[in-house]
């Protein structure tokens, strides 16, 4: 399938995949594909949200006691950082649509910086919890939280924020790849699909955090 010399007329642009009939079909397909993928992501996280709901319903007092171990200022700062990164991501797509490649790359770099900031803040939060023994399941050694089974709160906290953190890291990898391609001038008004679908993914990662933040940091 690699030889596509039989195309009639003008040579198609490099990014065009010959099994599509036109560029619009290719872009529409990519966007729908990403939306379907995001649906799977929602169900993937959904299992953990379900576990959260069940254990919070069974141990309501413990959840409220345990959430005081989290620092809402750090969580809040991270929320702001991620929302800013979502805005810069969206603006970057617009820049490529308007053929402002330099600005688009800049905005992607800012997005990447925000994601890195998020992970650094998360690192400080995690290392503090490791230090005092507020750890998942059988590694839980902290003694200052009253209520039944406080280790489960930290299991769910680490599972959900950990899975979210992995998604941030994957997103950072993809954004780096976008920056490298954008610097080579791959994106412009005719073709910006990879930036657009990465944007969709990035907004979902942001959205998940917007649910995690109040559910862990702001209860009680």
């Amino acid at each position: 399938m690699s030889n596509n010399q039989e195309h009639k007329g003008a040579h198609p642009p490099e990014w065009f995949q010959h099994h599509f009939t036109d560029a619009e079909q290719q872009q529409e397909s990519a966007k729908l594909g990403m939306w379907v993928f995001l649906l799977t992501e929602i169900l993937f996280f959904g299992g953990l949200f379900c576990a959260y709901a069940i254990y919070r319903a069974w141990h309501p007092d413990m959840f409220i006691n345990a959430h005081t171990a989290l620092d809402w200022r750090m969580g809040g700062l991270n929320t702001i950082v991620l929302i800013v990164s979502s805005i810069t991501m969206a603006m970057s797509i617009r820049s490529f649509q308007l053929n402002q490649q330099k600005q688009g790359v800049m905005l992607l770099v800012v997005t990447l910086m925000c994601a890195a900031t998020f992970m650094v803040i998360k690192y400080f939060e995690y290392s503090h919890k490791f230090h005092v023994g507020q750890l998942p399941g059988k590694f839980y050694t902290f003694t200052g939280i009253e209520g039944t089974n406080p280790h489960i709160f930290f299991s769910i906290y680490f599972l959900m924020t950990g899975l979210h953190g992995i998604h941030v890291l994957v997103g950072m990898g993809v954004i780096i790849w976008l920056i490298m391609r954008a610097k080579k001038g791959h994106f412009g008004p005719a073709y910006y699909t990879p930036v657009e679908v990465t944007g969709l993914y990035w907004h979902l990662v942001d959205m998940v955090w917007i649910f995690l933040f109040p559910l862990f940091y702001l209860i009680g």
Partner: protein
Amino acid sequence: MSYSPAVDDNGLPSPNYLSSEKGLWSWLSTLDHKRIGILYLIGITIAFFLGGVFALLLRLELFFPGQQLVGPDTYNKLFTLHGAVMVFLFIIPSIPAALGNFVLPLQLGAKDVAFPRLNLASWYIYVAGSLFALYALVTGGVDTGWTFYTPYSTSSNTAVISITTGAFILGFSSIFTGMNFIVTIHKLRAPGMTWDRLPLMVWALYGTALIQVLATPVLAITLALLIMERTLGVGIFDPAMGGDPVLFQHFFWFYSHPAVYIMILPGMGIISELIAAFSKREIVGYKFVAGSSLAIALLGFLVWGHHMFTSGQSELASAIFSFLTFFVAIPSAIKVFNWTATLYKGRISLEVPMLYALGFLFLFAIGGLTGLFLGTLSVDIHLHDTYFIVAHFHYVMMGGTVIALIGGIHYWWPKMFGRMYSQFWGVVGFILVFVGFNVTFFSQFIMGSQGMPRRYWDYLPQFQRIHGISTVGAMILGTGLFIIAIYLIASLRRGTIVGPNPWGASTLEWETTSPPHPHNFENQPVVTGGPYDFNKPRV
């Protein structure tokens, strides 16, 4: 038909997807959906063989009471691996990823699926997941049953982590296939291919893809949690840590019940194609058959609790799940009645694929109706965890899906390879499979209703005769499958060369050469009529 008269070294129309590029690497790096379908076909055949060997070993062990071949611990591992291999390595990818990959773009009049690279990646992910599962096999096996129920799966000292990691990885292969199919069906249809002109196979694959995309991530997170439970002791499922083992069952069946429709729906799609092609009639109630695929996909998400009637869920929950379970019978029956009505006054030709379609109608009816026994609360209490349920799901999975798969392979084989297999051996193979299957599993309905529990290594002497009959049936079934494999492989070299449309079928894939052009159609097809219009030319 306007196919070029040029032929390749093998006397097949040229260019075709089989001979246009040569060498192993051209296969391992292919982006062609037809080749990827063949790669999947090879993968699932190996998995089916492996799972089948486990099954035959189980039946041989059960030939007589007491120990024949293997001890009880090995027996537990054998049925676990039989189940896990058959479900995750074979039946889930079987029809969608192997046959579906091959025919879907052809039936839509597209050049390929929407994301060819993702399609190839899904095959490599499938291979990687399968290798993890095999690694579990060689490092001592697993003895939890394919359902990996907690708390036993968190304490068993067998290779639970490697096999669940394998299933986790395999899930992504399934998700990627589903994503690809949804987008392909939405965006890559040929001009004129409106939604009400889609072949019913496409509707079935669409319903299947929706389930793959919506249910599989839940299995993924469930298995990830199980792995976390074993490695980090997170306490979500482990009662000793304040966790809830029944929550595992809810999560597991939230995927695994819809997953049985991932297995059966594409089989139903094949049957729709076969009934139309060999009755030379438009499927009666096309819209209802198409819609029932979506209805089954939807209802499949609402009935997982019927696997847990005896697991300690509330009586109210059991009653609701039981009630909802009966609704699944409606779209299933719509399909069966419409297929039967299509046969009426059709010009029926009993070619080999049609034998499988008729076999499906018979076996699926038994499998489906016994499902209603099990969905009834009071009856299920008696039949739960007996051979009755083993027989029920084998009638649906093997008598339904596998029979449809084999029928589909026979139907599209000449399209895939341009050659026809031996009709005589085809009929012999079908008879052996059909008879062997019924002897194996109908006897299990009887012993199950008499109280023979499933998953037991040994049994009371009173069950000896019926277990013996079941084992003999399994041998006949195994022989039939072996014969089918032999003559199909033999036909690759010796089979007579066929034209584009040996069955006189009406859907788009039969309008290109056999085997098809690397880009499927030499000229973009334009669709002007329904999928089963046998009277007028459509392109």
